[in-house]
């Protein structure tokens, strides 16, 4: 039994059309994704916009209805409506991308952070206040700020309020959907460091959704690359960055700008080569509909989407 197991997850959105507004087709946002995450680890989900990474994350926390497949959290199926117990909801929390729109501007910090507590725990006003102050201290904000409103904080501080809200119920799994992409580099560093610190402290597991490979490399133990709703490659950080097998992964890695200006010409050439390979061997890696093939293991930890053997 794993900590989090996702089995053949499919999420299809209907396309409505015609006079009677009937369903005329489906968008396969997530199309047969399976993975498992170990407790205490950070699992990175990487892809470009529209690849289905956010939809996968939202499905796990129950914000998207799934079409088929199963999600097992500590052995319990959390996808069937009946078993959606409150306990599971408490154990899975989310950090949202935009710290400017994910906090209610008309609520004080106290109410923002206490909301999950009020939903699940019956605390007296005093206890609640104390808990919120503890949480604020944990995320490095002064406990006096409980009576302030979100607009009085900077982007990094707001994102930490979002983190405080996410860890209020001592969850086991946190789904972080692009937690730093709306932030400046220096603030980014602050939030990432902090996420690593509390991970150790609270033994948290992260599902880290991002399009930034540099940050994913810094944060994650295991990484999966998504393309058009399917996995193209999955493996440890070393597998993905040192031994990428799929042309799409190679292309993503080649696209990361190099911070050393001396490598510029080389990088430019390398990218051109990868692009040529991508165009040349596209048909070897994707089927007729432009989708990735099923995953095949190339080593114990490393899976790549390649056309079926034989």
């Amino acid at each position, binding site marked *: 039994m794993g900590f989090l197991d996702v089995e053949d997850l499919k999420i299809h959105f209907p396309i409505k059309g015609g006079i009677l507004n009937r369903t005329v087709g489906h968008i396969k946002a997530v199309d047969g994704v399976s993975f498992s995450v170990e407790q205490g680890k950070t699992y990175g989900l990487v892809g*470009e*916009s529209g690849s289905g990474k956010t939809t996968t994350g939202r499905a796990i926390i129950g914000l998207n209805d799934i079409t088929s497949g199963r999600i097992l959290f500590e052995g319990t199926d959390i996808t069937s409506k009946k078993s959606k117990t409150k306990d599971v909801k408490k154990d899975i929390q989310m950090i949202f991308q935009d710290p400017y729109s994910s906090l209610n501007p008309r609520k004080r910090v106290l109410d923002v952070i206490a909301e999950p507590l009020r939903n699940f725990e019956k605390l007296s006003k005093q206890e609640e206040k104390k808990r919120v102050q503890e949480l*604020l201290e944990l995320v*490095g*904000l*002064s406990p*006096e*700020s409980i009576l*302030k409103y979100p607009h*009085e*904080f*900077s982007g*990094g*501080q707001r994102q930490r309020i979002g983190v405080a809200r996410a860890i209020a119920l001592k969850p086991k799994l946190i789904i972080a959907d692009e937690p730093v992409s709306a932030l*400046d*580099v*220096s603030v*980014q*560093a*602050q939030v*990432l*460091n*902090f996420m*690593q610190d509390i991970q150790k402290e609270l033994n948290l597991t992260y599902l880290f959704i991002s*399009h*930034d*490979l*540099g*940050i994913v*490399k*810094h944060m994650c133990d295991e990484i999966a690359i998504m393309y058009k709703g399917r996995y193209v490659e999955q493996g440890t950080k070393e597998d993905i960055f040192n031994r990428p097998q799929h042309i799409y992964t190679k*292309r*993503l890695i*080649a*696209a*990361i*700008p*190099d*911070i*050393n*200006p*001396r490598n*510029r010409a080389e*990088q*430019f050439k390398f*990218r*051109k080569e990868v692009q040529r390979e991508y165009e040349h061997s596209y048909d070897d890696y994707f089927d007729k509909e432009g989708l990735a093939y099923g995953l095949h293991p190339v080593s114990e930890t490393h899976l790549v989407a390649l056309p079926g053997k034989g």
Partner: protein
Amino acid sequence: MGNELLEIKNLTTSFRIGDGYYAAVDDVTLTINKNEVLGIVGESGSGKSALAFSIMGLHNRVKIEGNIMLNGQDLVKMSNSKLNKLRGDDLAMIFQDPLTALNPLMEIGDQIAETLLLHKPDMSQKQRRTRVIELLNMVGIPKPEYVYGQFPHELSGGMRQRVVIAIAIANKPELLIADEPTTALDVTIQAQILDLIRELKEDIHAGIILITHDLGVVAEMADRVAVMYAGQIVEIADVYSLFENPLHPYTKSLLNSVPAEGQDKLHVIQGIVPSLKNLPRTGCRFAARIPWINESAHEENPVLHEVSPGHFVRCTCHEHFYIPEESKEEQSDGVS
């Protein structure tokens, strides 16, 4: 030299907040040479976009002092009608968000043709169409004849940005300002757009000002780099010196806060970028973010010092700057 394309002298751009003017760009002096990519780096609120908008004359209700000289003409003193003749012709800009930069109700081809119509009125309609197709080809849009009649919403983000670039280069500008041209795009598309700008640079021989917060993009694209903090240039150097021998504490801190190979903990710059109204106007503006550096290390009125040919750095605090071993003090930056 005679190689200068644009000379900015003591430019100060002030915005009106309440009943006072506050300088978002403060006494910036800068030259851009022909055929050169000048990268401007800084975080939000550093004044990099305000600088670009000042050059283009796109600000409303601001006070601009100083000179911006393009081919012997001062853009600051120029009337709007004269500026309109330059904008889109000698001066062009690529905006951050390609969706809002394009007119949603106008065909792609017509939007590009509009710039030609305004600046080259003697072109016939047929010539214009040929030129638009040629431009669409140049920026790597497949099936240009078909795309000519499409609307912006029918194109992907990367394709839209290519259209914006096509509009910008339509009249072979001498100076091209790219304000975060790839921030709204996916990484693989970003790589394509950057490669495109690089290739176009060879073709149109323009000077390019590339504004970005992404240090990787600067490292790949720029010939020279200016680092801005709180409205001032704090360091300016050729790209190799800047990345291999960064001097100003802000530059060093920025470079250390990006994830790199074998780095366990990221460096965190303490405190926050001060808002325009609360900007310290005297002394070293970065001093508050590096409180472990002795006050005596800073200059009273920091100026840019030329430490090696072409490498300028503001204030003397860089001589005493070090990054503390344990940047645990981050915990103390909470609001009071």
